């Protein structure tokens, strides 16, 4: 089912949590709402679910205005951040809950309920835990029970609030691949909230990047990563080095501090787009001092400080590192392989 938000705003007291947000989600899409805490992403999810009422604006599901509709009637499955499993019920009864509370006329028979629940539990690979209580499960297992429970009512939309937020790093990586696979199997329109850019870029079809209650950019993971529209998006999606350089009228960027032609410009550079050389050259004009080298990992991380005492982070391959023989306090020359600037970037 498609979802459409039109000029939605929401205040909590004097805090503007959601500021005139409009976007739409296609049927069958897996969309990530990405942003730092307090950016309004969870509030948007709760407004779609109907758990929160927007102060103004419209929520449409499949072209139907549901702004005033009770959450019970929206046919939405919701997975809560802390799972919100019913702790007095077994895993089986947790999943069966949505079927058991249906009005008598729509309620499936006991054998149908049993079949549906066991099917869902095997879908999330937890059928062997059916008669356990939530408190006996691990975090990842609880998460999957919560998902099975939300799917039991055959929702046309699935909303997940920080679905992997409280899991440890390994489990969350496993689970998010599994979620992607599951989505490809059942194709239910899904929206999940996350503050982890890696998670959003890896799992989703499209990403909505949010900041301070408004949408910064909407696009595929490739679009938001490689063509960020605002400095915020660039900075939020990965490590970044910030240079104050000058842009000449020819469009050329000059990094040297003693340059006085052109206009001042903020230049954003990813750590892996910085090159390091032992000798000064046209490609590597900026002198810097090595502060710290971290070789643990697939890439070598080099922390440097340039002539204006700006800290810099570079990522180079192990081969480059071995060639350069970098040591602490060594003076090197760095260059920028590719960079990003923004039009009208004046707030610095």
């Amino acid at each position, binding site marked *: 089912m498609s979802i459409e938000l039109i000029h939605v705003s929401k205040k909590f007291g004097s805090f503007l949590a959601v500021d005139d947000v409009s976007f739409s989600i296609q049927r069958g899409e897996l969309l990530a709402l990405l942003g730092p805490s307090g950016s309004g992403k969870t509030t948007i999810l709760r407004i779609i679910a109907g758990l929160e009422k927007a102060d103004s604006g419209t929520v449409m599901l499949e072209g139907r205005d549901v702004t005033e509709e009770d959450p019970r009637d929206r046919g939405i499955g919701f997975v809560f951040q802390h799972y919100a499993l*019913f*702790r007095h019920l077994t895993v089986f009864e947790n999943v069966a809950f949505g079927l058991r509370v249906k009005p008598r006329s729509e309620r499936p028979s006991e054998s149908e309920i049993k079949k549906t629940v066991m099917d869902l539990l095997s879908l999330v690979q937890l059928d062997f835990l059916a008669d356990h209580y939530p408190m006996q499960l691990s975090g990842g297992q609880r998460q999957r029970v919560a998902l099975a*429970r939300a799917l039991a009512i055959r929702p046309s939309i699935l909303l997940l609030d920080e679905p992997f937020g409280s899991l440890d790093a390994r489990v969350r990586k496993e689970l998010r691949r599994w979620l992607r696979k599951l989505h490809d199997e059942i194709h239910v329109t899904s929206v999940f909230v996350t503050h982890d850019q890696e998670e959003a870029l890896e799992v989703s079809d499209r990403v909505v990047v949010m900041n301070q209650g408004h949408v910064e950019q909407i696009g595929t993971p490739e679009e938001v990563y490689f063509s960020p529209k605002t400095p915020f998006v660039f900075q939020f999606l990965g490590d970044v080095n910030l240079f104050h350089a000058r842009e000449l009228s020819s469009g050329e960027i000059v990094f040297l501090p003693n340059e006085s032609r052109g206009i001042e410009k903020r230049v954003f550079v990813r750590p892996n787009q910085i090159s390091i050389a032992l000798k000064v050259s046209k490609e590597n004009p900026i002198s810097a001092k090595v502060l710290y080298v971290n070789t643990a990992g697939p890439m070598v991380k080099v922390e440097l400080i340039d002539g204006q005492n700006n800290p810099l982070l570079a990522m180079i391959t192990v081969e480059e590192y071995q060639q350069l023989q970098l040591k602490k306090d060594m003076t090197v020359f760095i260059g920028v392989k590719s960079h990003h600037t923004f039009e009208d970037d004046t707030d610095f």
Partner: protein
Amino acid sequence: MLKSYRKIFIKRYLVRLFRLSVILTALCFMLLFLIFPLVVVFYNSFKEGVSVYANNIIRKDTIDAVILTLKILLIVVPLNTLFGIACAWYVTRYSFRGKRLLLTLLDLPFTVSPVVAGTVFVLLFSVNGLLGSLIEKWNIQIIFAFPGMVLATLFVTFPFVARELIPIMEEQGQEMEEAGRMLGANGLQILLKITLPNIRWALFYGIILCSARSIGEFGAVSVVSGHIRGKTITVPLEVEILYNEYNLTGAFCVASLLCFIGIITMILRKWIENKDPLIKYREGSRYGD
């Protein structure tokens, strides 16, 4: 070197001595103020034999007092249970102006002397009181009658259930209820299938405390009762009457009934603490998240 070792040794010894003296003081205190009075009550009730005890219990006045106490209990406890659930729900599920004030007011029966409460009811509902004209018009008797005693007991016991429920409902938050709503449950289903099962032991405990206090209430009830023999005498008032008539054995026998209730309350409390499966699994859940 040696000197410092000795210092440490003496210090340890002093700490141990201090700990022991604190424990002993606490023990003496409990013995003197809790165990000893209980022993005295039971000793004095039974010292003239079991038959005297039984006769004192099945006296008409005692039976009347027990029946009246139970009648008050049966009205007060259900009402205060409903009030407690509603109040806890309102306080923990909604934020509103004056919430703190409401919570403070909830403790009023704990902080105000019951005698004051009783007196207020007398001033309000007696024939010469503020609402006296209404009372006379409708020709109902509140003060020095059963309704007044119910009112006084209601007032004194109303915080118990709410006070037990508020912290536990606060801690649970409303995510489970929201989950129920998203799964299609209506308000009543959420209350019966999610909220109540999760607070059932706290609720049960609150009801027990409320009942115990309702049975044992003396001050407020004493003021509004008027001490009419066979009509407005509850068990605690009966104890007082017997005591004032120098029937010490009788007084102790009836008092022993109240002690039994106190002891049963404590046993039930222990039982509830062991019973709650949520408490049992709480330990095992650590490996979870």
